[in-house]
């Protein structure tokens, strides 16, 4: 993929884009929430989205999930060079919410096996399958797959527990496993660890970091990285720690030069490469702090009048500074 003959392709050409937000605007009635969001997201990236409360982060995520449609602009998913406009919910895009959206009447393992059951079978199919014995066999496969995911996420002892017996962190791990078993193109996480305390949060973050390591391994073997994650968070350190790219969304705009008479809505005002950590790394507090401070100044304290100055992600990739899954142009980046 990367090298064709002797010609080394430029990094941008060989990047496998999976989601393209093409000049997206979103308004609810008169209220403009998002104005002119343009993003290209590569397969295998872990993207942290940060921004103040109510700036439209969740709206953007919900649009990618398929709950809302953009008022203007196009949202495209790209798979094998085929562009599809997002229209409604699909198994290609899973989402995990802050408020533990897993049904309470199913045990952890049943919850994870719910996705395959709902997408691969139907009510009449299962009824018929009970008679022909094909459904119990398929169900066993589903449960086995679900068990593998839960064991990987450290929930071996909680397989058959109902959600009310699980802690917040465990519930979120079940919710993430439930989405990942569907092998979605993109996984959307809307402040998944917002309600967790610090220690449990670290475990949950490690799970995401281990997924990123899988991506790197796949990349090193020349395969498609399996997980692409877009991650909304309030915590700056979490954003820098988990993401390999940090995107800030905010309502900063220069009304003098841009001359709108009405606020156009929040847009991307920060977009940069973030350092990559593995599960074993002890995150270097100095680097984390440096990044967090910069993001905080730009995104939260409005010290960024020109929207474009801090959106340098693709330039960084271009100049070879993009790391992680973006570093797969021939040589492996450590």
């Amino acid at each position, binding site marked *: 993929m990367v090298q064709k003959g002797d010609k080394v392709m430029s990094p941008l050409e060989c990047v496998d884009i999976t989601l393209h937000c093409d000049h997206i605007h979103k308004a609810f009635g008169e209220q403009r929430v998002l104005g002119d969001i343009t993003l290209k997201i590569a397969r295998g990236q872990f993207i942290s989205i940060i921004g103040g409360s109510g700036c439209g982060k969740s709206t953007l995520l*919900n649009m990618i*999930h*398929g*709950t809302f449609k953009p008022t203007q602009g196009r949202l495209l998913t790209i798979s094998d060079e085929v562009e599809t406009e997002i229209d*409604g*919910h*699909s*198994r290609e*895009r*899973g*989402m*995990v*919410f802050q*408020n533990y*959206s*897993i*049904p*309470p*009447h*199913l*045990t952890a393992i049943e919850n994870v096996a*719910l*996705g395959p059951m*709902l*997408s691969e079978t*139907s*009510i009449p199919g299962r009824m018929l399958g009970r008679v022909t014995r094909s459904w119990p066999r398929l169900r066993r496969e589903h449960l086995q797959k679900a068990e593998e995911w839960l064991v990987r996420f450290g929930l071996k002892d909680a397989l058959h527990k*109902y*959600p*009310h017996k699980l802690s917040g962190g465990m519930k979120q791990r079940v*919710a993430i496993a*439930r*989405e990942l078993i*569907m092998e*979605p193109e993109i996984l959307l996480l809307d402040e998944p660890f917002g309600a967790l305390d610090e220690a449990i949060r670290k475990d949950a973050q490690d799970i995401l970091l281990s997924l990123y390591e899988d991506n790197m391994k796949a990349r090193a073997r020349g395969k498609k990285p399996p997980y692409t994650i877009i991650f909304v968070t309030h915590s700056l350190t979490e954003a820098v720690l988990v993401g390999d790219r940090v995107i800030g969304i905010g309502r900063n705009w220069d009304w003098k030069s841009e001359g709108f008479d009405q606020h156009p809505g929040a847009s991307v005002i920060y977009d940069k490469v973030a350092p990559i950590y593995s599960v074993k790394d002890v995150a270097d507090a100095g680097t984390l702090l440096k990044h967090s401070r910069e993001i905080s100044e730009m995104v939260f304290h409005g010290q960024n009048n020109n929207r474009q100055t801090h959106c340098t992600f693709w330039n960084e990739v271009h100049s070879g500074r993009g790391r992680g899954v973006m570093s797969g142009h021939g040589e492996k980046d450590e």
Partner: protein
Amino acid sequence: MRALIKTFKPLFVIRGSVSQRWQIAIFFIAILSIVIGYSLLAYDKDNRLLPTWSMLFAGLQKIITDPVTGDHYLWEDTIDSFCRIIPAVGIASVIGIVIGMYMGVYAGAEAFFSRILTFIGNIAPNAIMVLFIVYFGYQFKMYVAVIVFGIFTMIAKTVFEAVKEISDEEIFSLKSLNASSSEIVWTVLFPQVLPQIITAIHQAIAPAIIYVISAEWVSGSSGFGYRFSMFSRSGRLELTFPYLLYLGAIGVLTLAIFNLTTRLLCPWYRKETK
């Protein structure tokens, strides 16, 4: 004295807690005070309205097995009335659950039914009995129609509210698991609101008994309502009181049955998590 105050003080603290043993003791005190109060009134020499204990006991024996005719009034009435209540509650539950589930997920169904249900729910079923008597006569169908009419709106509303409480997030994530609409409604949401459905059906039973009693009172052929209309004419209070106690006991038994059903069918359900 101080020890006594210390013992009784928790009973008079707002939001204080009382041990299980105390709760049972207080319950017996309540029963005892009712019995003593009743006895004082019944054995008063001017009393003509309250039967004495021995009269009540004789009355109870008579309604269990009539010494003259050999009829088992209590048992026969129970069978007659509950043969009307149970099928009617069954029909009303099915109608109510289907309407409530779909109202909870489809805005169109909600718009279609919600005002109509409020309207229908405000028509007294004993009043609309006139229609059912004209249509069906004093038949089984009439009793069932009165009860169904009286309770299906309640069930539908409770189910609707339970489904409505399920978060959008959960439903959206189910949709992105590629579930069809009927799978979302019947495979995931229905078992999830089953505890509330069971409660709704239980709460509908008390009004169902009211409606069946008033219908039987009017039609005057059999059942609790018929028996009470007879008692009201003859003024036989020593027979009426045991009947009332029996109805109360049935209510307590029903509650126990429904609680057990919830525990068996929904082992995951914990009230405090709501």
